């Protein structure tokens, strides 16, 4: 029994110290920089991906008419409000004519005076003609001198010229009258086509300058979306590709559309390609002009090719590639990539074959001599 106390104490020591030591060694090896790095792997598979382009845009009207006077003046009346539908040729308002009406009246009076002058000239010409004939007859009867006959002929010629002048004067005055009437009708604000009044910039009584818009019209049947795509992600954008449109105010609803036009001018400052996308069917009620929309343009699907996840692509020493797992060892393989779709799949043109295993996710940056631990999910990530 004497050996028991020593054995008991030693036993207690062993029971306490050995697990402690074991725990210590475990802690030293499994955590911190000496531990293996958890990674997830996948195999290269053959898939036909459907690339797509994503851009944002604003709803715009195809045609916007900014209607205003062609010279400075005061707005006399404006008969339409925002939201009114107007027809082509409808008079929307009028500028203040100031003295134009008086000038038209003056011109009318001048026209009448010109007519009177024409009558006077006709009468003079008729009389001169009669006188000339009479004196010619008298000349043949030798009752008058040749000088008088010449004078009468001269007076006839003058009267004929006077008649022509008076006739042309009448034409001139009438034309000026028409010009003033045209000016007068130019002061009316007229809708150039059917449309919807969207803006009413000034109210009656305001002075406006030449070229300033008084009302703006748009054609509500022709709304399109002006879309901007990042130039890097705009490859393959052509006319007639199908598009999916999501308006900002209707985030859950996807509408169909198509690419109407790719603008010949890109935006060099923001590095974006511009395009116009139209709705297959205009939404009811019409979205306000200027509303934001998200557009996804589907490109034609590509033939099946080896595909990897874009989360696997790393850059090491200036080269793009993936970490290839061969027999549990890591090797960095540079790859040449092809097209990608919007869900994260990228085609591999060179570097990997179908069935090769590669690292998708890793808990740390990888180097060639790191030990890896293949897991289903990186610890710390909840599904």
């Amino acid at each position, binding site marked *: 029994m004497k050996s028991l106390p020593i054995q008991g104490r030693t036993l207690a020591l062993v029971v306490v110290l050995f697990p402690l030591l074991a725990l210590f060694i475990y802690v030293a090896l499994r955590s911190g920089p000496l531990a293996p790095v958890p990674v997830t792997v996948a195999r290269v598979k053959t898939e036909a991906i459907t690339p797509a382009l994503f851009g944002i845009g604003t709803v715009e009207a195809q045609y916007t008419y900014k209607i205003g006077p062609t010279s400075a003046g005061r707005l006399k009346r404006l008969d339409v409000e925002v939201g009114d539908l107007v027809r082509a040729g409808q008079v929307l308002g009028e500028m203040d004519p100031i003295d134009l009406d008086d000038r038209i009246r003056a011109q009318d009076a001048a026209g009448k005076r010109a007519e009177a002058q024409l009558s006077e000239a006709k009468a003079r010409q008729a009389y001169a003609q009669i006188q000339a004939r009479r004196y010619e007859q008298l000349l043949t009867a030798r009752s008058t001198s040749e000088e008088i006959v010449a004078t009468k002929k001269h007076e006839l010629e003058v009267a004929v010229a006077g008649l022509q002048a008076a006739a042309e004067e009448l034409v001139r005055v009438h034309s000026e009258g028409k010009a003033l009437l045209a000016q007068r009708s130019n002061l009316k604000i007229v809708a150039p086509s059917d449309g919807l009044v969207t803006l009413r910039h000034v109210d009656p009584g305001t002075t406006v300058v030449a070229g300033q818009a008084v009302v703006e019209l748009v054609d509500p049947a022709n709304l399109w979306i002006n879309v901007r795509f990042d130039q890097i992600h705009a490859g393959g954008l052509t006319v007639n590709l199908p598009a999916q449109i999501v308006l900002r105010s209707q985030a859950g609803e996807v509408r169909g559309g198509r690419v109407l036009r790719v603008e010949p001018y890109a935006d060099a400052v923001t590095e974006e390609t511009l395009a116009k996308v139209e709705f297959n069917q205009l939404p009811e009620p019409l979205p306000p002009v200027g509303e934001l929309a998200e557009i996804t343009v589907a490109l034609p699907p590509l033939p099946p090719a080896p595909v990897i996840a874009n989360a696997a*692509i790393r*850059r090491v020493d200036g080269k793009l590639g993936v970490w290839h797992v061969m027999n549990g060892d890591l090797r960095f393989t540079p790859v040449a990539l092809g097209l990608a779709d*919007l869900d994260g799949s990228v085609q591999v043109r060179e570097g990997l074959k179908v069935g090769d295993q590669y690292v998708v*996710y890793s808990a740390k940056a990888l180097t060639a001599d790191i030990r890896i631990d293949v897991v289903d999910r990186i610890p710390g990530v909840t599904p």
Partner: protein
Amino acid sequence: MHAWGKFVFTGVGLGLLIGVTLSMAGIYRGMVDDAKALLDNSGADLWVVQQDTLGPYAESSSIYDDTWRSLRGMPGVASAANVTYLTMQVRQGERDVRTMVTGVTPGAAGTSGWPPYLVAGRQITRGHYEAVADIASGFKLGDTLQIRRNYYTVVGLTRRMVSSSGDPMVFIPLKDAQEAQFLKDNDAIHQQRRRTAENPAFNRPQVPGLLDAVIASQSINPYVNAVLVQIESGHNSEVVAESIRRWKRLTVYTRNQMEEILVGKLIATSARQIAMFLVILSIVSSAIVAFIIYTLTLGKIREIAVLKLIGTKNRTIIALIMQQSVALGLIGFVVGKITATLLMAPIFPKYVLLEPLDSVIGFGAVVVICILSSIIAIRAALKVDPAEAIGG
């Protein structure tokens, strides 16, 4: 070995103290690692920032977003990418999280500024309204984040993508980040428009489109915080940096200079605080060891007197006491290392990096402290009069 209960108990207590010490060292290393991770994860060899500023992390910097074009053509430059950084609150559902929102230039994985590796999901593929978040932010795949006016879907998750102060990073497309950086709330925009309209220089009736053009120019943000440059292999980074400084008149930092700025300037104050804590904790630990060894020795005065009486050498007595002290230190160290790794590191809100070298140095320090602390007890033991063994 009586009073071994007291012995082990003290060892555990000492162990917790040592655990705290190791954690403090780990916190410092974690802060330095945060700074290094930020620099490594940006994938850049050079940082080009506004002239005379200390770079995008230590100080705010703004350069035009087309500066990258003139840098891209310089000799030795393999790629140049815009990047923006903004530390702000990001809302998700009912809570908001302080994050560093990083705007990454459009491109593909491998571009500078993009997260170099993911732990879930995928990289950003759309030009707007997608985000990759760090798991330290608590966001999950599919979450909807609100940054200013827009909503972003989390499509990928990363790990150890943090700012130098430990805020998790959220990567969003550059154009959205530029908008987030400058765009004010709608009331402020309304006020700005009103002020512009009331300024007669901008609102001239003879020039109908002037006001709209001025308001449009106020509503854009052509700035980014830095351009991340990667250098072609075979070129010296300092040479390329110097040519950019000289000809583009921008400030350029190489990797080493950025590390110096982040570690030397940003973390300097925290480093001093932690160093002070380490010194205090070491003093406290040595005081505890000294005290307990002294107490235990005093409790054994009779036995030591007996040993002296029977002719044991002083050296043996000293060795005994020192062994006891070192054993205490060993138990303390083992308990401390376990506590630091399994308990403190995971629950501490900042990243704690426990390096093996630190543990080895810590072990050496513990042994030295224990040896030194046992000196008081040794002196007391040596002064014992052997006569006490038989006397009173």
